[in-house]
């Protein structure tokens, strides 16, 4: 395996880990809100969250490219903060991937929260647990299987990202060139052996982590 392959592999793992961690932080309160809100506009938010599942990655990538560009809302914000613009940078890739993998993290956690009986949270309240305490001591442990599913899906889905990366990240070695792009380059250059090597690694990695998930026979699946 060439140093370029290793760089791409390392970049991909770093991206997937960072995006998964960010999504757990962002997705947990969003999932809790979706699981408990009675608001009329809840379906709108749910549909928005689910969009990346069905939207062509090039469409999502295109809008993100525009939004993060110098004239887009995200771009305006990052420029105001003195961070420049995000497209064609690792940071841009992270932001795009967060949107891209959002439903794969939010949905399992939301389902797990929704199946926790409200009665248990009430019982905790009568046992002197305040709202945050109830969330931490009852809701989180009972939703643990949902969190495992969310982590694995979020990680695996980000690992396989291609279209969105090409749109917002381009193909910069060590910065935005992830494994899927590297494989594409190998194939373009008719380096089938190298493409085989990386593909096999991605296949093996994805299969193994999904196996971990399904071997536990969890009820929370997408």
């Amino acid at each position, binding site marked *: 395996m060439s140093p370029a392959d290793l760089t791409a592999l390392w970049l991909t793992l770093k991206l997937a880990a960072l995006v998964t961690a960010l999504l757990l932080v962002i997705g947990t309160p969003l999932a809790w809100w979706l699981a408990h809100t009675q608001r009329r506009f809840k379906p709108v938010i749910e549909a928005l969250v689910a969009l990346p599942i069905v939207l062509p990655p090039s469409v999502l990538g295109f809008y993100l490219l525009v939004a993060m560009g110098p004239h887009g809302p995200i771009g305006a914000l990052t420029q105001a903060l003195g961070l420049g613009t995000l497209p064609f940078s690792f940071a841009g890739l992270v932001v795009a991937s967060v949107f891209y993998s959002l439903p794969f993290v939010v949905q399992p956690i939301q389902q797990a929260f929704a199946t926790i009986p409200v009665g248990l949270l009430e*019982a905790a*309240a009568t046992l002197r*647990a305040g709202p945050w305490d109830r969330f931490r001591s009852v809701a989180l442990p009972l939703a643990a299987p949902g969190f495992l599913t969310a982590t694995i899906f979020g990680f695996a889905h980000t690992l396989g990202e291609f279209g969105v990366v090409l749109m917002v990240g381009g193909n910069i070695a060590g910065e935005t060139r992830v494994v899927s792009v590297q494989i594409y380059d190998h194939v373009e250059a008719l380096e089938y052996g190298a493409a085989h090597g990386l593909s096999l690694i991605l296949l093996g990695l994805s299969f193994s982590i999904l196996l971990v998930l399904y071997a536990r026979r969890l009820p929370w699946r997408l």
Partner: protein
Amino acid sequence: MTLRASFRHAYPGFALAADLTLPMHGVSALFGPSGSGKTTLLRLMAGLERAADGSLALGATVWQDATRFVPAHQRPIGFVFQDARLFPHLSVRQNLAYGQRRAGAGGAIEAMAERLGITHLLARKPDRLSGGEAQRVAIARALLTEPRILLMDEPLAALDAARKAEILPYLERLHAEANIPILYVSHSFDEVARLADHLVLLDSGQVVAAGSLVELTTRLDLPLAHRAEAEAIINAQVVAHDAAFHLTCVDFSGEKLWLSLHEAPIGSFVRVRVRARDVSLTLAPQTGTSILNILPATLTDLGGESDSQVMIGLDVGGTRLLSRVTRKSVSLLGLVSGRRVFAQIKGVAIVE
């Protein structure tokens, strides 16, 4: 000290408008048909629901009024739900410790487990418990927070007869030890008759009557005295056992009643029930009758029941009894208020 509650709230299907004052000792029962608002009232007291217009105070401590609402987790209450609601991810011991630790309560988990007969279950997870065991754990869990009042929402309703029989003795002991007031919601009069001292009758979200169990069960203006099983509940003391004839004698208001031999020791207090249909009236004391219990009584009031039946209220040395007789008998014997009669009691049973 008393618990004073007043709630007004419109719910889908019914409106709650309840004012009540409860004594802070013994067992008070909220009793009424399904949908009468019993559970809602209990949840409002626990702070699990909030009435648009409500006030609630335990002695001088205000839990809710026009400006304040103390959330459930800051109220020193214990709550036992119909379904035990144990935390499935925690062992029985961890369930018991959950509230105790948060309430900063002392008390030993082992001693409480001993009291409720769950010592052998401490290491188990809730999914390995029977319904009766789970409910005993839930009761222990609530008591370990050392609450100032224990609220119980039909704690036996989800259990079969055998499981009920398994838990009732624990509840009775809780009642006897009486170191904590209990507010008990039930739609089963048998449970209420066994456990309650004080009774609040609810119907359609309103308090119909409140008072002692003994008084309310025999008040002719209330539905309890007009059930097919209408009865008087009497607090009595065991004074003698007759081993030869297998009988037990109990004393109330200076009068004695004989009933089938019971294991309750001499000197202990028991509740006996006397059904209205088991009490007949005579104007003079009868001799040559098989009936053992004949008590002098004064007729206090009459309440029509049907075209043929009349319910009669009696006073026996300050204790009330009911007698269900025919309208024809009332007419033939000239039964009117103030009339001195003799009550012949065919059946007496200890409530259990």
